[in-house]
C-alpha cells in the first residue's frame, strides 16, 4: 500500500473545518460591517444636520452682530464645525420692498457636510436646511420734524400757548413742520425748514413717507413691546389702539389709534407714528426726533384725523437725527423669521 493512503483524514478534516468556520465568521463580519456602516451613515446624517443648523445659526448671528444686511447671493463658508464638518451658507433676497419700514426678506440656505478628517476630504453625508430671514432697515427718510398727513387743529393760537412750534396756525391737508433746533447730527443730512401747511393732498404726503400703514395695521408690526413697558430703553412699541402717554420715553412708538399726552410735561425722544389723531393735552409735550400723525385716516381715506394742539398747552417737535437713529436701531437688524425652517434632507 502506498504511504500516502495511510496518512488518515485528519488534515483534510481540519482544513475543511477551518475553511467552514472562516466562511461563517467572514459572513458574520460582512453582515456586521454592513450594519455598522448603516449605523454610521445614520449618525453621519444626524451630524450633517447638526452642522447645517450650526452654520445657519452662526451666519445669522454674524450679520446680526454686524448689524448689516447680507448682499444678495452672499455666501459664507464655515470651515470647521463640530462634530466635524463644513457648512456653506448662502443668502438670496426674496423680496426687496419699497416700504422703508417693511423688511427685506431673505432665503438663507445652509448646506452641512460631514467629514471625517481621518478619511480625507470626502463627504460622508450632506444635509441642507433653509430658513427665511429678514433685514429690517429701520430707516426713515426725514422729510420734516412733524408730518401731519391731514391737518393740525390749533385750539388756541395765542402766543406761547396751544401752538405747534413753527406752524402758522392755518389748517390744511398735509402739514410738514420743521422749525427751530434742527439737530442733524449722527451723519444725518439737514432737513429743510418747513413752516407751512397745505403742502398738498394726503396722497402726496403718503407718497413722501413710504410707510405702508395699511399693511402695518392689518398685519401687525413686530415690535419689542405691545404695551408701554420700559419706555426709556430705546425699544420699539406697537400699540394697537389708543394710548394715553403720561410718562417720558424714548424709542419708536407706533400707535394705531389716538395718542393723547397728559400731565405737566411729557418728553419723547425718538420717533412717534400715530394712526389717528394726536391730542397734545400735556402742559408741555416735547418730541425730540420725528412725529407723524393722521396716517390711518389720511391713507385709508376715512376723513381728517387732525393733530390737536389743545388749549393752554405747548407742543414742541424738534427734529433730532441722533434720536431718530437710536429709535430706529430698535427695529434694525438681521434675524430669522420664526417658524419658517425647512429640512431639505434629500437635497445634495
Amino acid at each position, binding site marked *: 500500500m502506498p504511504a500516502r493512503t495511510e496518512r488518515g483524514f485528519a488534515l483534510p478534516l481540519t482544513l475543511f473545518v477551518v475553511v467552514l468556520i472562516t466562511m461563517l465568521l467572514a459572513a458574520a463580519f460582512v453582515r456586521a460591517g454592513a450594519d455598522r456602516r448603516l449605523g454610521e451613515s445614520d449618525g453621519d446624517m444626524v451630524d450633517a444636520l447638526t452642522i447645517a443648523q450650526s452654520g445657519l445659526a452662526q451666519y445669522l448671528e454674524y450679520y446680526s452682530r454686524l448689524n448689516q444686511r447680507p448682499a444678495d447671493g452672499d455666501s459664507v463658508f464655515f470651515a470647521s464645525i463640530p462634530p466635524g464638518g463644513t457648512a456653506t451658507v448662502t443668502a438670496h433676497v426674496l423680496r426687496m420692498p419699497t416700504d422703508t419700514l417693511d423688511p427685506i426678506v431673505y432665503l438663507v440656505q445652509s448646506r452641512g457636510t460631514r467629514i471625517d478628517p481621518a478619511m480625507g476630504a470626502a463627504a460622508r453625508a450632506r444635509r441642507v436646511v433653509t430658513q427665511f430671514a429678514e433685514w429690517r432697515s429701520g430707516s426713515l427718510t426725514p422729510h420734516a420734524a412733524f408730518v401731519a398727513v391731514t391737518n393740525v387743529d390749533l385750539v388756541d393760537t395765542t402766543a406761547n400757548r396751544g401752538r405747534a412750534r413753527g406752524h402758522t396756525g392755518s389748517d390744511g391737508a398735509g402739514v410738514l413742520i420743521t422749525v427751530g433746533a434742527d439737530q442733524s447730527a449722527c451723519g444725518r443730512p439737514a432737513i429743510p425748514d418747513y413752516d407751512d401747511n397745505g403742502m398738498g393732498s394726503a396722497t402726496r404726503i403718503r407718497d413722501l413717507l413710504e410707510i405702508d400703514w395699511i399693511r402695518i395695521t392689518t398685519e401687525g408690526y413686530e415690535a419689542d413691546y405691545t404695551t408701554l413697558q420700559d419706555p426709556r430703553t430705546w425699544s420699539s412699541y406697537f400699540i394697537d389702539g389708543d394710548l394715553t402717554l403720561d410718562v417720558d420715553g424714548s424709542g419708536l412708538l407706533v400707535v394705531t389709534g389716538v395718542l393723547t399726552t397728559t400731565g405737566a410735561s411729557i418728553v419723547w425722544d425718538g420717533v412717534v407714528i400715530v394712526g389717528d389723531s394726536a391730542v397734545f393735552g400735556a402742559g408741555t409735550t416735547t418730541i425730540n426726533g420725528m412725529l407723524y400723525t393722521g396716517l390711518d385716516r389720511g391713507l385709508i381715506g376715512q376723513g381728517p384725523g387732525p393733530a390737536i394742539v389743545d388749549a393752554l398747552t405747548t407742543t414742541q417737535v424738534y427734529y433730532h437725527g441722533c434720536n431718530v437713529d437710536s429709535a430706529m436701531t430698535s427695529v434694525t437688524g438681521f434675524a430669522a*423669521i420664526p417658524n419658517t425652517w425647512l*429640512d431639505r434632507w434629500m437635497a445634495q
Partner: protein
Amino acid sequence: MSRGFTLVELLVAITVAAVLGVGLTRLMISDSRFVGRQDAMMDARQAARAAVTVLATDLRMVTGRGGILAAVPESVTVRVPAAFGLTCQRSADTVYAVLAPADPGRDTTQNGFGIAKLESGGYDFGLDPVDTVMVADTTMCAAVGVRLPPDGQLTQLLGARIGATRANSPTLSVGQIFFLYREMTYRFAPSVMVPGRVGLWYRAGDAPAVELAAPFDTTSRFAFLTGPGLSVSETPPGNLGDLRGLELRVTGMATQEVPGDDGPRRFSLTTRVGFANRSD
C-alpha cells in the same frame, strides 16, 4: 502487507471522531446562532432606524400650534410642510407666489395641498385644498420686488378658497409668507408585511394608508413633550396646541426568531423631536 485495523483501533478512532464531531457540531451551531442573532438584531435595528428617520424628518418641521391635528400614543396626525413660499400677486381666486427650493422628495407640482399663512403668533390654516401650476413669467413678481431664488419655482396657486372671497379661508396678501402642507398620519398598527406584528403606517391626506416599516414591538408609541423644559408625558395634553414635540419610542423586532431564544430580538430606539417651527 496490510494488516488492517484492530477492534481497539477502530473503537478509539470512532470515539475520537465522535468527540471531534460533537465539538465541531456544537461549534457550528453556536456560530450559526451567533450569526442568526446578529442578523436578527440587524433586522430589528434597521426597522427602528427606518421608522425614526422618517418620523423625525417630518415631525421636526411641524409648526406646533395648528400643526397637530390628532394625537394618541399609537398615532399622530400632523401637517407637514412640503414647501415654503412668498406671494407676489393676487387676483380674485388665484395667487402667484415664489416657492423656495423644496426637498426633492416632495413633489410640489401635485395638487391638493393644504396652505397656511404666517402670522405673528404662528400660522393660519386654510380649509380647502390648493392646486399648483408652474409659471414661467416672473415679471409679475418682479413688479412688487419679489425675486425668484436659485432652484425656486414661480407657482400659480389655484382655488378661490385661498382668496378673500371665501370667508373661512385665510387671505393671502402680497409679500405673505406661507407654506404648502400635507396632512400626514403616522400610526403603529397591525402589520401586513409581517403578520402578527406591529407596523408603522402612514397616510397622506385621504390616500390609502401605506405600511412604511415593520415589524415593531407592541410597546412602540409616541410620547408627548410639553412646556419650556419639554417634559415627557405618556398622554397628549388636552390642548394639542401645547405640544412642543414628540418622543419617538420605537422598538424594532427581528422578522425571524432565533432558535434557542425566548422571542424575536428587539432593538429600542428613543428619540426626542422638537417642533422647529414653533418658536414660542
